[in-house]
């Protein structure tokens, strides 16, 4: 790949992230992009301190299952020299550059040897700014990497945008969920429909076979969910949202 191809590819990919609505969109666009360089597996994760479980912090990964199981069950995270290197140097690096620059312990060497067994011959690790106190990192790997010198920084940039897109979609999903919390239960809809018909809580209680206090609670909940200030506004909002019929 020429330098301009690498650049065009990176910019098209970053542009593509803008339209992503689902994490799966980011996943497939990113996987296709890194595939150009021979990467076929990756893991994106928060970096808990040594001794803590890695699994709850994993955001996305497509490692070979057997390797994943081994890595988790043998706590390889604690002994992975590539990950440990980031503690002192928060820059993206080729796995092989880190391995050659460090004196590895037997345990660390075993992690790297086992990775190779599962087709993770070499890789590229990229530290990313987390959304909590923990740093995140993205590790890409494959059997036969083809990385022209200028591609490292391009991949680093694309990885940052992929990561930010994942965070953006997370936030949007969270907002969506909050919005869904304005969804009334069938019972609340029924009772609010009676409110719309001008019934008082005691009347609704009789109609629905519940106490007037329970009817009152349902109305209060509906008012809260719809962000209304009183029952009249709750009725208006519910009609506007199509939750009850006018």
């Amino acid at each position, binding site marked *: 790949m020429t330098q301009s191809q690498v*650049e065009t590819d990176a*910019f098209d990919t970053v542009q593509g992230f803008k339209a992503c609505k689902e994490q799966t969109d980011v996943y497939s666009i990113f996987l296709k992009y890194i595939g150009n360089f021979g990467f076929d597996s990756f893991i994106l994760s928060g970096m808990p301190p040594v001794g803590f479980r890695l699994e709850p912090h994993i955001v996305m990964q497509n490692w070979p299952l057997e390797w994943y199981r081994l890595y988790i069950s043998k706590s390889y995270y604690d002994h992975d020299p590539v990950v440990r290197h980031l503690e002192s140097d928060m820059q993206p690096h080729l796995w092989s550059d880190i391995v050659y620059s460090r004196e590895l312990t037997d345990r660390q060497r075993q992690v790297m040897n086992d990775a190779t067994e599962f087709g993770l011959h070499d890789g590229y690790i990229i530290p990313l*700014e987390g959304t909590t106190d923990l740093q995140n990192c993205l590790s890409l790997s494959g059997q036969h990497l083809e990385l022209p010198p*200028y591609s490292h*920084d391009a991949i680093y*940039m694309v990885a*940052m945008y992929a990561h*930010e897109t994942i965070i953006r979609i997370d936030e949007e999903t969270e907002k969506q969920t909050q919005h869904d919390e304005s969804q009334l239960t069938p019972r609340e809809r029924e009772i609010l429909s009676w409110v719309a018909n001008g019934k008082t809580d005691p009347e609704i209680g009789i109609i629905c076979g519940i106490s007037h206090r329970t009817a009152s609670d349902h109305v209060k909940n509906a008012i809260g969910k719809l962000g209304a200030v009183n029952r009249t506004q709750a009725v208006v909002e519910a009609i506007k949202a199509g939750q009850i019929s006018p």
Partner: protein
Amino acid sequence: MLHVITNHNRNAYAAQLNDSFRVRHKVFVDGLGWEDLRQPDGREIDQFDTDDAIHLVFLNEEDRVVGGSRLLPTTQPHLLSEVFPHLASARPLPIGTDVFEWTRFYVSGSEGKSPRDNKISRMIMCGLLEYCLDHGIDTLSAVAEPIWIPRFFRLGWNPEPLGIPTQHKGQRIMGLKLTVSEQALEKTRKGIKTKTSILQR
């Protein structure tokens, strides 16, 4: 407060402007080691500190400069057009009367590291946005380290790359285009829990 020094009021602010050049020298030359900017008088002034440059200086209660930044009109020669045009190899350099280049972002006492996330740097960013919104500047260009991308993203500045990051004197830098908006100001203010103006108008 963040004070704005332009060609129109630089006489009234002569002492503060002078102070800002000294702080810049401490931060960029002594701290970050940008040796080609070293000046014998200890005042870091470059070819872009012309009459057109807009200096934003953050003054403490004693009227001393504790941080600041600089805006350059992109219709005049600026850093990206003259020194780093190769950082905009993938996208055209944003240029126009409503586009300014944001340079020399510094906080006193942060020598040796870029002004990442302390309160003063965030306040300068808020004041800078306020200034841009006041003056119809809707786009900024900048030479920045890629680690700023997440920060700009999360503060609503919509960072768009102009080219692939490259190594420059042991530092990874890239050209960025940023969008000025009310939403960005709101998000940037959130981190320092302020709703009021930082800008001395």
